[in-house]
């Protein structure tokens, strides 16, 4: 595996996703990679019915910069879609990410097993390396 140049981190504001973001930012800072913070918008959030505050760009980029990553190397991206599908798409086409980083469990997910697991889905289907960070 070559050294990643663009790392995409799945971020939904949950504690696990913050841990994933922090890890991704530290790695990006260490190896000189760019970091793309990707938030997938679900059905309810799209309609403003999620009952939760949507993740905020400033809060996310602050996490990345606090570990020493240059703000110029950080990109915030919001896409409608199921998280695994959105992150898979980040690995396709021009300017594709060559490393995906996700937390073990996102916001709103249940507490055990593999039901609804984005990280498991990506680990099985992504065509680039995937790092799953425990919160």
């Amino acid at each position, binding site marked *: 595996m070559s050294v990643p140049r663009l790392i995409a981190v799945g971020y*939904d504001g949950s504690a696990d996703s913050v841990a994933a973001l922090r890890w991704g930012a530290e790695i990006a800072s260490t190896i000189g990679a760019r970091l793309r913070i990707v938030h*997938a*918008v*679900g*059905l*309810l*959030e*799209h*309609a403003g*019915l*999620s009952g*939760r505050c949507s993740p905020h760009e400033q809060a996310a980029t602050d996490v990345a910069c606090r570990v020493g990553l240059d703000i110029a190397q950080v990109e915030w991206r919001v*896409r*409608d*879609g*199921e998280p695994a*599908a*959105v992150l*898979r*798409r980040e690995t*396709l*086409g*021009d300017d594709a990410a060559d490393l995906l980083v996700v937390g073990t469990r*996102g*916001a*709103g*997910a*249940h*507490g055990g*097993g*593999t*039901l*609804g*697991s*984005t990280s498991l*889905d990506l*680990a*099985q*289907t*992504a*065509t680039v390396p995937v790092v799953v960070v425990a919160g």
Partner: protein
Amino acid sequence: MTTVVLAGPAGESAHDGGPHPESPARVVAAMKGVHDLHLGSDLVTVDVGPASREDLARVHSLRYLDELEAFSGRGGGALDPDTFVTSDSWDAACRAAGAGLAAVAELERRRDGVGFVAARPPGHHAVRSRGMGFCLLNNVAVTAASLVAGGARVAIVDWDVHHGNGTQEIFWDEPAVLYISTHQSPLYPGTGRPDEIGGARARGKTVNIPLPPGATGDVVSLAFSEVVAPAVDSFVPDWILVSCGFDAHRADPLAELALSSADFAALAATVQQLAPCGGRTVLFLEGGYDLQAVRRSTASTIGALVGDRTFPEDPTFGGPGADAVRAATMLRERALSEVDKECSGGGSLDAPHTGSRGAPTTRLRSDW
């Protein structure tokens, strides 16, 4: 007059997540739409039983079925930020998955009529190994897989506003199933690009026509006349199943297409013209979260199938998307021809994802 075989209601009181748009009231609204037509003896209601484990296992992994049943048995919770499970969700989902089978059995017995499945939770987002997007078990896929197991060829037409990623994934490499979707893009679940055309054994059997927000009924009808009808015609199905979401209605709170109930009637009429002899058409309620729109759209859609042309709303025209239909057609044709070229020239395709049993992302090595 055409007989309507009604499988349902199912889910009209169970699987209740409280203040959530995917609510039991949706099935109640659909049933009101059916009864608004006053079909009398032309409406035949069939009992709905749960799909068997054998039926479910054709489209879902045993591990997922076990986990979902156990999770529901423990009282449930959130499957993801959109999707809830309650203590009675497993039973409700099994009944919803069985409803299409009941409709098919009755249509086969009668050799006439059209089926309507008024059941929830909806199904078309559920992939082989996961539920998502309000969906637990893939109802239309369970019925299609049962028909395929019996030797039939099945066309699934999905006009829900969201792409049916689950149905696409399940039949990605199944040559006996044609899956066609019109859907808003960008929107959840983020799949359904025109260059997603099917797996190696079923190249061209997946057809996607993404439409921009604001697209009106004339645009979706254009997609049906230019893409859906020719694709179904050349496939020559034994059955047509429709993932009949009503969330492309302009009043729906979850999306931004701009159809009216009369537009769904036009789509249904097109499907009816494509239907094999002796009926063999079943419509499955998928999405649709404005209750009045669901009621009106159900009445218009079924009304069109039985010859009732009294629509409470006018058809819609003038929205964006005609160019998108043509672009989708061109992208798909380009993808198919490049696949042919690469295969004959020894080139390679990106390997399809297989971890979730063939995730539908095989595409050419290009930037689109």
